């Protein structure tokens, strides 16, 4: 109908920050982060795949797979829709962490000769492959993914993994029903751009997404405040994931468990 033409131009709000900032409860099985380190690996070198999976139900089974990798050409894939075509999917394993022995693709033709143009040699020998982690529970399935970059010859400088800095999540205050505690996550001298928080219950004063609170050569810090529900007792989990824009570094995370007692 005519209306289709009108609604086709409506904005897609799936990228709106506000939605994600207010979505921080571990109310279903969630794959909060996936990383494949080192990010700067060349095809043929092993990758270690890890994930942070949390939720209200016990995880019964994991499966990890990659999609779209070809041995006859470079592939650059955006979109987890790739996994809907089983012909394109490569199973990697059913437990985490796992080591993925990536194939050697150095024989693939790539790159562009710019010798006579005056431009710098253009290296397009890059492959981008999505990796999907499914966490199966008795109640639901959690999905998380990461785009894995590989270079067939040499990695770009921006894609070289740097050592993971030390980090620790500290809870300041007494964890009791109705109390408000401070969450402080200190990271070593490495810059992460944004931080996503997850909790079993309660309210996060600074929403589920924060930025740097302290940014110094000695170390970085982000903070949040957790309001514990009045009727909550028992174990309350808090998780935080630090990420960089454009995936310059692999994400890091910490999880703490608060024992909330009256």
């Amino acid at each position, binding site marked *: *109908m005519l209306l*289709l033409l009108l609604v086709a131009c409506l904005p897609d709000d799936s990228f709106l920050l506000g939605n994600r900032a207010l*979505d921080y409860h571990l109310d279903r099985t969630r794959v909060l982060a996936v990383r494949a380190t080192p990010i700067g690996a060349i095809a043929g070198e092993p990758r270690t795949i890890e994930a942070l999976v949390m939720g209200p139900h016990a995880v019964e089974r994991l499966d990890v797979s990659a999609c779209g990798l070809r041995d006859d050409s470079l592939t650059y894939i955006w979109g987890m*829709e790739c996994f809907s*075509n089983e012909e394109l999917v490569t199973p990697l394993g059913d437990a985490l962490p796992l080591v993925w022995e990536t194939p050697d693709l150095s024989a693939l033709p790539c790159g562009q000769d710019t010798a006579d143009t005056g431009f710098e040699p253009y290296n397009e020998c890059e492959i981008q492959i999505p990796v999907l982690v499914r966490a199966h529970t008795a109640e639901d*399935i959690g999905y998380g993914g990461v785009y894995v970059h590989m270079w067939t010859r040499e990695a770009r400088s921006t894609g070289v993994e740097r050592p993971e800095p030390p980090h620790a999540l500290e809870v300041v205050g007494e964890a009791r029903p109705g109390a408000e505690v401070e969450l402080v996550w200190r990271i070593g001298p490495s810059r992460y751009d944004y931080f996503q928080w997850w909790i079993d219950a309660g309210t996060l004063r600074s929403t589920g997404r924060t930025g740097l609170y302290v940014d110094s050569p000695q170390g970085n810090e982000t903070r949040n405040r957790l309001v514990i529900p009045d009727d909550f007792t028992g174990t309350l989990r808090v998780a935080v994931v630090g990420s960089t824009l454009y995936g310059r570094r692999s994400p890091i995370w910490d999880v703490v468990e608060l024992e909330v007692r009256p």
Partner: protein
Amino acid sequence: MLWIPPVHAEAPAASVELDGLVLEHGSGRPVVGATVTIEGVDPVTTDEDGRFALALPPGTYAVTLEGADHMALTVEETFGAGERVEVEYRLRRFAWDEEVIVYGEHREEVSRQVVTIEELRRVPGSFGDPIRALQSLPGVARPSSVEGDIVVRGAEGLNTGTFVDDVRVPFLFHFLAGRSVVSPSMIEDVEFYPGGMPSRFGDVTQAVVNARTGFGPAEKGLHGHVHADLLEGGASMAAELGNGWTVRGAGRVAWISGLIQAGQFVYLASRGAWERDYRPARIKFPYNDWQLRIIKRAGPDTWSMSAIGALDGLRAVEERYDDDGDGRPDPYEPDPNAPTDFNDIIENRFVRMTFRWDHDTPEFDASTWVSVGNDRQRNIIPGLGVFFSGPDGGQIETGWFRVRHEQRLQLSEGWVTRYGLDLRAQPSTVESYIDASTPGDVKSVSDLRLWASPWVETQHRMGDLWVAPGFRASWHRLAGKDAVYAEPRASVRYDLSDRWTLTAFSGLFTQAPPTDRYADSVGVTATRVMQAWQSSAGIEGRWPSGLEVNANVYFSEMKDLNVKQVVWEVVRPSDYDSDVAYLQQRPRYEAVRGRAFGLETQIRLRPNNGWFGWAGVTVGRALRIDDDGTFPSRYDTPFSFVLVAARDLPLDIGLSGRLRLTSGQPYTPQAGVFVGDYYEPLPLERNSARYPFFKQLDVRIDKTFTGRRARWTVYLDVYNALNSHNPFLVSYDYDFSELRTDYYIPILPALGLQVEY
């Protein structure tokens, strides 16, 4: 033959002169040699113009009419003393099987006629379009989004043959506006078979919709209709020229694009943008259709030339740049190096011209016609999955040449045999633009599709039993490969009593897939001719009060159904000068098996004391089976309830309403994959989820003014009067955890005017 004694007879008084005309329902042709029987009066037969005359005493009579090739009709009539009465009756040809539902404009009918065309025109939400109103019948699904298809018993739209006066057309609806391509005022009746088609229909596997327009004489002078509403305007005319010559014609044009652009102009002008020579890209969706028929009758022979055409388009118009420096935005010119004009997003059009000869006598009639034409279906949007009929990212151009001859023989009383031959040639060219950036990249495949198919069917009544076996042989040539199929079909009716009739049908059907689905390098070359075996059984009941009930169980087993899926593939587009492969959404064609079964029930009150309406319940499934298992058809509808009710009010005011409660249509759900900062969609199991339960109320009110020379009807058709949120597109919230109902058609009042002169 039915005969009912007079209900009431009065004492003889001044004689009544009765002048009658008997026409064939549907074609409007005079029924020659029909017997007219009234108690106490010698029977008479109709002449070559279908007329008869009688003189009889005033009173109430049962008038019984029967033609050798037509079903008997008994009508109760009351004639006053000294009257000269002109009556017109319409007889329906013997139906082929129990599935036929014929909608026509007539006084009475003794077939399983469920809904008259006037009733269909008053179905709310259909905007006066009787073909669109078919969606209110049992077993017929409402198509989703913008698909202009009739979806019957869960089958894809292409499995339903769409015809205008027996001539096949590629589509019956303007896909965006949803209006049928035949002017509503031209339609005399709609022949609809939800399954179990007689042998005279070939190259179809599920259902037939045959919109029939008039071949009979028009009334003296110039008559016609004019209509206008928000979307479009149209007119039709019919003129009797004398000496057996009749001309009929109709046309329609959409003006909604112009209205939208005018609104856009006003908006931009109010913002001052127009003064700065700013021209935004605009979307146009023109549609139009036209019909013309010239008829010459001479005795039992009728010659006619008919032409019909329709166009649907979706076009982006851009004139933003001033390259020629004249201070004004330049008109859009297509890029000569592009493989096609990508601003021409969708264009569906067809034209048919048919030359026909009919010879009609009580013992023998024959019909021969030659039809030529051309189709173009173009949709340059690849892989969106919105338009499931027609090409994806390409264009199909098809020539059309068809010859048909059929004859009818009256072998004895109650025994009629019909036979005929269909020949069709379709040169077809498919162009795929999916991977093309230059004309040289366009995949272009041509094929000459051939079909030859003789058929025979016989109808024999033996007391309460009516049997109709038939047989069709089909030879298909696709992509140079030949295939021959035998298609036996049989239909039975048994009258348990005057009130109840049992029906049954079983038969085979074949259909060639569209060219784009098997063309080399575009579709799947292994595709074969689609086949279906259909069976059904039912019971019909009718009461003198006008109440009718029927129930029908059906079962269909299908093979080599050619279905279009939209899949994600990793491909290396040729328009990128690189060695990198990317993920793309593309169409894929598969041959699958199919199975459909269900129960259709309907209770109908024929027009009576100012009321009419019906209620229908359908329960059933439409499944598809491939190597990965069984999954629901895209149109699988386990439950459907439709209630239509209409009331004639004083002052020529009509009020009607339609309530539809239907299972949600299947769709492929998506999960949200969290990739560190946002969610990406992951399609899950095919067609494993459903839209929310569909519930909608439509209301229509009309008022007719009758003048000396014309009848004016003003109507208000309120679509989705309760503003129910029935989404027609799958849409999720930001993390794909909940289905959104944003994309629905809200309450849509349409004010229209029809003038009949």
